[in-house]
């Protein structure tokens, strides 16, 4: 597994890391809860046939500037600017969890700026009858098992690499959780449902069969709200961050969708 190329772009005066790898038509990836403290096998699978571009949203690993974004409009403008600067205007977009919510938003509000989209268990909705898990009110030890079917995968993603700054590394991981909270506290509900009808891009929804954060019923709700509908793929042996648990299966589904 070779390393991606790292560049940074400026969003509101803060540096945001952009990882790039592979060749072929561009495909963007916005990461899920916890962000990307390190490169992941799922992106390697995509990079086998596409140019993968993974920008870090403000406050997620590799980027700062979350704490000047006060409203959802601030976030939308920041993420749209980030995608544009990362060279992703008009590209296929994939997102997971927190990032998938912004894939939906961008596709709804700026339909010309995306080609095809794939979303893995997006945040943004809340159903009182079938509530999503409060991911922030958890004992630290329980979080990996909530996010992944195999908790060790999430632990490995977050484990401090040799030589990393032992103070700044854990702060960066907490910051990622804070950035998600800043957008989605307390219920994950950004009223995304109201904007889903604006989506025109062909849409794939991917759900880990064992998602313990967002119930599978949300996939149907989302698909129903998008005028052109959405294809729903359920991935066996996967939790909320399905791309971590089952990189091959999720990449295969995404690549089949974007063509």
């Amino acid at each position, binding site marked *: 597994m070779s390393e991606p190329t790292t560049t940074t772009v400026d969003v509101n005066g803060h540096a945001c890391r952009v990882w790039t790898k592979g060749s072929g038509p561009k495909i963007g990836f916005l990461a899920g809860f916890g962000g990307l403290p390190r490169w992941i096998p799922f992106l390697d699978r995509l990079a086998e046939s596409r140019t993968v571009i993974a920008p870090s949203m403000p406050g997620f690993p590799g980027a700062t500037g*979350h*704490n000047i974004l*006060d409203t959802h409009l601030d976030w939308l403008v920041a993420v749209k600017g980030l995608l544009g600067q990362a060279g992703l205007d008009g590209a296929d977009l994939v997102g997971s969890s927190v990032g998938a919510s912004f894939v939906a938003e961008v596709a709804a509000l700026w339909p010309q700026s995306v080609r095809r989209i794939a979303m893995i268990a997006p945040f943004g909705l809340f159903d009182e009858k079938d509530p999503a898990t409060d991911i*922030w*009110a*958890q*004992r630290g030890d*329980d979080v990996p098992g909530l996010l992944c079917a195999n908790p060790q995968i999430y632990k490995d993603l977050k484990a401090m690499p040799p030589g990393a700054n*032992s*103070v700044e590394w*854990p*702060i960066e991981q*907490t*910051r990622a*959780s*804070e*950035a*998600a*909270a*800043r957008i989605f*506290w*307390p219920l994950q509900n950004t009223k995304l449902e109201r904007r889903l009808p604006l989506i025109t891009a062909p849409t794939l929804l991917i759900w880990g069969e064992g998602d313990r954060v967002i119930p599978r019923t949300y996939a149907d709700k989302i698909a129903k709200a998008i005028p052109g509908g959405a294809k729903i793929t359920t991935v066996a042996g996967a939790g909320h961050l399905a791309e971590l648990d089952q990189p091959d299966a999720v990449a295969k589904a995404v690549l089949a969708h974007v063509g």
Partner: protein
Amino acid sequence: MHGCEQAPPAGSAYTELPDDFKEKHPSVWVNIHSSLFDPKRAHHMYNDFLDELEYAAECGYDAICCNEHHSNGYGLMPSPNLIATALARRTTDTAICVMGNSLALYNPPTRVAEEFAMIDCISGGRLIAGFPVGTPMDTTFAYGQNPSQLRERYNEAHDLVMRAWQEKETFAFNGRFNQQRYVNIWPRPIQEPHPPIWIPGAGSVETWRWAAERDYVFCYLSYYGYKMARNVMTGFWAEMDRLGKDRNPYRAGFAQVVGVAETRQQAMDLYTEPAEYFYGRCLHVDPRFASPPGYTTEATQRAGLESQVKMAAEASNAGPSTQAPSAMKMQMLARDMKGIVDNGYLITGSPDDVTEQLMDLAKTLNIGQLMLLMQFGNMSKDLTKYNTRLFAETVMPRLKPLFDEWENKWWPKPLRVSERASLPAFAGSSAVAAE
């Protein structure tokens, strides 16, 4: 030295949590079950709290305190302002310390400016205005505030309240989170330029600095006693030195749980049950509510991580770390009387024992504003009154002269007695009560 009767958090506990509470229920806070709350019993509890605080005023304590908690089985005062107002009508000279209003929870925050001004007017200028950020359990979980914005909102709300109290003309407030076209509060506080401001906090350098820059009192509200507080208060005074502030002990407050009796053995006999109720049942908080991301600033996280070696050493003393979030601390507490006393959470014993330890506390921590929790856990009203009176008669006089050389600049300046309204004698019965 000012000895304040600190009522809640300890003094407003629901006193009848079941014996198996800790085993059967995950948390005293946030999601404590409604079936445990009997409003008819709470009628008596609230009236007991008020009786106990009024009694403390009668006994000559300098102030009586109340504070704010939400969805909490050991703090039944979501609105301390209601309690303070009731106290204002039943006391005459005692300062009323509301410790305090969590500014970010009020929309608009001018509500705090208004209600505190009301209390100041009703009480004749006896209010001490406390502005806590609030615990994670109260603010982010029970009240749903965004932990990533809590402190920014708190800071802005503070600025708005202070302007609302002091500006003479109606003004527009164009804040990041609050926008009000017409800010013009009626009533206005009696105390000029504003009531004394006390800031409860813990081991955050930013909070010390923020309070010092504004010349406010910093209060370390810990349930873990003065022995655990040394690092925090040493850090606080070192920071005051760096900022060029004097070491006036009245800059600092500290909460201490106290149980006094004729003898040490009698104190153990009397206070073991309420102390174990308090530390065992009241402080049983689910750690998943301990640290919502963003609640602890990155600077404080950094300081904590950098002192991990020190923290590991502290942990081996069988006590909670000073840097751990409050609910996390609560999981590490001693819960049996021996641990509670040995660790200094509770200062107890004969009047001499208690005086000696409080002297040690005041001198080692350099604390002028001593906030005493004379009621804790399920302590009965009779025992609370005994504790309150015995302390006032046998301990307080010996503490008073301490720090006489310093001026307490952070104390209310009430109206002269001749300027104050006279309160009518209380007529207890009415047609409703007779039915």
